């Protein structure tokens, strides 16, 4: 499904700020895989997501999605089949546009004919949006004419999730998308994510700093350090793992003890 082959990316090459963000990274995901990714700050998790989404082109290596070489396909073309959620709930939506208009923009991915640009959102599509919003159980279906800026962070993130999946993507990238939400809302958004991903069998990559979450969710756990995937567990090996095992791997993999309070603090059960 998704194949990353020998990806390399260096930022600020040749300056004192040179940073090897991706270092010969290779990764393969099967259709329907749901992989969680852990790693300390600067491990290259977000850079990998940016490379997959096309925010920049990689220096070396190949990105293949669903059998198609997308290495040099521009970001806005890739986003037709790659859905993406950021940590900041404010990033995924346009605050001064209404819920309906936001969904309509997201739904643009469904249109294939070029002359569609001058068409308006149809009654049928509005009905579809309403139906989908109702699934969130947040009462948003009755506020479709409200600007998104009036919604809470959790509501906006749930809406962003809906926008990313209103047209089923081949690949969903979740970059700590529940980290900025309060525990109850985070759980709700996470449940929604699980439900949508499972129902539509979407291949999914999710960055998390929560070790128990990393083991519970999905069918694979990846660990990144220094711009490469240093550890990958799936199947039986993953089932038998505990948070402590993962932490130990983390220490081995990164060659240093955990220095990230957030990871240590979030190893407790729950969120």
């Amino acid at each position, binding site marked *: 499904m998704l194949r990353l082959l020998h990806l390399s990316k260096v930022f600020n090459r040749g300056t004192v700020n040179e940073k090897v963000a991706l270092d010969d990274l290779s990764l393969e995901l099967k259709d329907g895989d749901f992989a969680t990714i852990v790693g300390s700050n600067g491990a290259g998790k977000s850079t990998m997501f940016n490379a997959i989404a096309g925010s920049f082109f990689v220096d070396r290596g190949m990105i293949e999605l669903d059998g198609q070489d997308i290495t040099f396909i521009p970001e806005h073309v890739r986003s037709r089949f790659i859905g993406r959620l950021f940590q900041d709930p404010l990033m995924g939506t346009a605050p001064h546009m209404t819920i309906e208009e936001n969904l309509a*923009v997201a739904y*643009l991915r469904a249109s294939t004919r070029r002359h569609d640009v*001058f068409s308006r959102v149809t009654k049928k599509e509005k009905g579809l949006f309403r139906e989908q919003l109702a699934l969130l159980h947040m009462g948003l279906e009755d506020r479709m004419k409200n600007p998104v800026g009036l919604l809470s962070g959790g509501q906006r993130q749930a809406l962003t999730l809906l926008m990313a999946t209103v047209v089923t993507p081949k690949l969903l990238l979740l970059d700590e998308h529940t980290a900025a939400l309060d525990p109850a809302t985070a759980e709700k958004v996470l449940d929604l994510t699980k439900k949508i991903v499972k129902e539509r069998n979407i291949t999914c990559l999710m960055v998390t700093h929560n070790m128990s979450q990393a083991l519970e969710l999905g069918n694979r756990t990846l660990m990144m350090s220094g711009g490469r995937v240093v550890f990958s567990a799936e199947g039986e090996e993953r089932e038998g793992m505990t948070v402590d095992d993962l932490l130990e791997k983390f220490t081995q993999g990164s060659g240093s003890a955990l220095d990230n309070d957030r990871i240590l603090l979030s190893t407790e059960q729950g969120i």
Partner: protein
Amino acid sequence: MNFLTPQIVQTALEVGLIYGLVALSLFISFSILDICDLSTDGCYTLGCAVGAVVTIAGHPVLALFASVAAGICSGYVTALLQTKFGVQSILAGIIVNTGLYTINLAVMGFSSNLPIFGTDTVFTLVKGISKAAWWQEWSSLVFLALLLMLIVLFIKWFLGTRLGLSIRATGDSPAMVRASSINPQFTVTVGLCFANAMTGLAGSLIGQYNKTSDINLGTGMVTIALASLIIGETISRKSGNMLWRISCVILGSCLYRFIISIALRLKVPTEAFKLVSAVIVAIACAAPAAKDQIALQRKKAAAMREHRKMSEEEAK
């Protein structure tokens, strides 16, 4: 008693409607796309110059379309510089504006002004429709009002289409646009071409209205249009439905012309007009913040009184 004669009101409305087009142009580029397009001055003159040349050649209606086309070209160059070549938007506008000065001169045959006489303009054509006395007097205003109404309705329709929504999203949330299938380079280009088309049209209309084209016509236009836009956005409070917001921009432009007319009646020297404009813009921009400040001071004063009472009661 005759402070504002009907004649003055009429002229203010007519010019206000024409300037309203430039304000609408900035509404698209500044409010919707969040781009400060400083090529407005040059593009306005370009529209006027192109319009004047075509009008003198005997085609006043064609002149309007020619100016729209010229505006689109100008907008395209500005957009090209900032999307494909990564020039900062403000700088792109300044570069195009500078280049347009020479182009405008060239269009006018390297003379700094070009009078339009001995030929019809759209205004004389409209005036000729009927011989009725009221029509003779009000035809220009009716024509401009109808034209503006059409354009406002068009903008309202356009912003509701998928392309229009994409343009709005581009200005509202760059991160969201990156995550959706919109090509920001395309939407910025379409938006700027559309905006500058209206600026060009305004230039063409003002040229035919004043029966002259001048190389310095557009100087300071961006400030005037911005003033109108901000007055309009202050009235509409940037909320309510789109149609109301767009209409308020035109209302702002007419209001601005009224303020200028009043300044004129108060015998403010013409040399001071740019300063008056700048002051109006500053006041319009500062008004919402000043209002908040006053409200806060009032609240503070009230709270202080209450706190004093509270502590006195506590002391007893």
